[in-house]
């Protein structure tokens, strides 16, 4: 069911310094209204393959832990696992990251943030679901506020099973993801653009107080 907009997003009349009143409609004036489009790769296949190889070799993960799985990510930076040597590193801002790891259960509230973060990443971008919670809700299968299927809400390229999967499993998963990317099969961003309405309807079905533009550039 639709709830009314947050006050700061509602239309408001504003008086300019010259005394003229005019209307400000935040969602129109403050946010870009364009929708995502399908992005084709380079014209020559070889170039695209080359790019895909590079993308595979430099996975920049958005430092955003959504659930208990976040704990399993940290060891990857430590001497014991040292993911850096596989070209994996963490970026603090979605603009520069191209891999979003949903690490564990995702409450509706966090889902909203995850969607924003995902949409603010630049394509091509990849999503990895971590642990059974992201696959089918796991032990939260009957929870009132955690989603059960991540791929209803954003295109997932790869799931890593387990509750929780160990860092080794993560590394293995990332290696598989690399294969997918190199094979050019990781086109989540375009899939998201194609089935945009479907994803949005799913998202809006669980996020009752939708308080952002449809696509967060």
């Amino acid at each position, binding site marked *: 069911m639709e709830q009314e907009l947050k006050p700061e997003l509602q239309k408001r009349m504003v008086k300019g310094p010259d005394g003229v009143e005019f209307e400000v409609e935040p969602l129109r004036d403050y946010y*870009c209204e364009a929708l995502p489009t399908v*992005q*084709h*790769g*380079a014209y020559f296949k070889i170039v695209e393959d*080359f*790019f895909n190889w*590079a*993308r595979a*070799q*430099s996975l*920049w993960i958005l*430092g955003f832990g959504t659930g208990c799985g976040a704990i399993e990510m940290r060891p990857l930076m*430590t*001497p014991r696992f*040292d993911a*850096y*040597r596989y*070209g994996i*590193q963490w*970026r*603090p*801002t979605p*603009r*520069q990251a*191209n891999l979003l790891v949903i690490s564990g259960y995702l409450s509706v509230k966090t889902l909203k943030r995850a969607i924003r973060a995902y949409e603010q990443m*630049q*394509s*091509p971008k990849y999503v990895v679901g971590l642990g059974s919670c992201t696959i089918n809700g796991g032990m939260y299968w009957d929870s009132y506020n955690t989603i059960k299927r991540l791929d209803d809400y954003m295109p997932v390229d790869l799931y890593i099973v387990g509750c929780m999967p160990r860092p080794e499993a993560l590394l293995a998963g990332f290696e598989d993801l690399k294969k997918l990317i190199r094979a050019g099969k990781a086109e989540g*961003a375009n899939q998201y653009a194609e089935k945009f309405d479907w994803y949005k309807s799913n998202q809006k079905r669980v996020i009752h107080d939708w308080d952002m533009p449809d696509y967060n*550039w």
Partner: protein
Amino acid sequence: MSFDWMKIPYALLTVFIVFNYGLLLGAFIQKIGARAGRRYGIPVWQNYVDLIKNYGQRTSITHGVMFYLGPVFRLTGGIGLLLFVPTIYGSYMFSNLSFAGDLILALYFVFFGTLGMALGAGESGHPHAAIGITRGLSQVSVAELPFALAVFAVALQYQTLSVTDIVAAQQGGVLNWTLFTNPLAVAAAMLAFLGSMMRPPFDVVIAPQEIPIGPPTEYHSAYLALMQTNRAIFPVAKMVIYMNLFFGGATSWPEFAVKVFLLYLFSAFVGVCFPRFRVEQSIRWFLIWAVPLGVQAILWV
């Protein structure tokens, strides 16, 4: 010294060499940092891959004209800085475009990129960018002071502002280096050097944990690629200046490579050993430890 067309391909060659060297050097230093942390560290070619990846990104956004131009300013600053100082002493090929100006030009051109970058990041409208910039400017305003004093001292010492002449004055034996003829100035300058390398303990500007990641928060794809290119060129260009002023310059590429590497290593070494300063702490630190050295230097020259 004057211009002729042949200088252009030579300059491009310098840029190419320094660019590659910078990328590899950066990776090496990161590896060393990793080893200090008992890690294996990134592969040496990682920077190339990241660069290609970022150029290969399919989408990008822009917040406006200045945002778009920011990285261009930045990289222009880096390349310009590199080209305004002779890289290899005594080589016509690698004297670059230093006919355009002397040391002062180089010193002030450093700010060209900084300013443009600051403006670009500013237009992104992200508060973290602005905060990062205020931190950066506040810090650099004091970090530059000992360096300026050192440069003043060196210029007084050799009675010239031309980089070439300064290097020439240091030829003929290690003991002729400014490092030994004017140790105070060098000490002051090296402390300033730490402040200008954006590494701990003076990297509060881009502190990823609190203001992700400062000015470049909004930058991505090709913008970021340009800035990475600058990250490869700019430090080397800066270290070339230091090398020329204080460490006898370089007469050949290998010597250049070694000296720059050692300089870079110095900042990396301090970086892995010390935690991060807050802005006001680093300002006080520079005023208390570095500036007096610089003052001594200009008084005793």
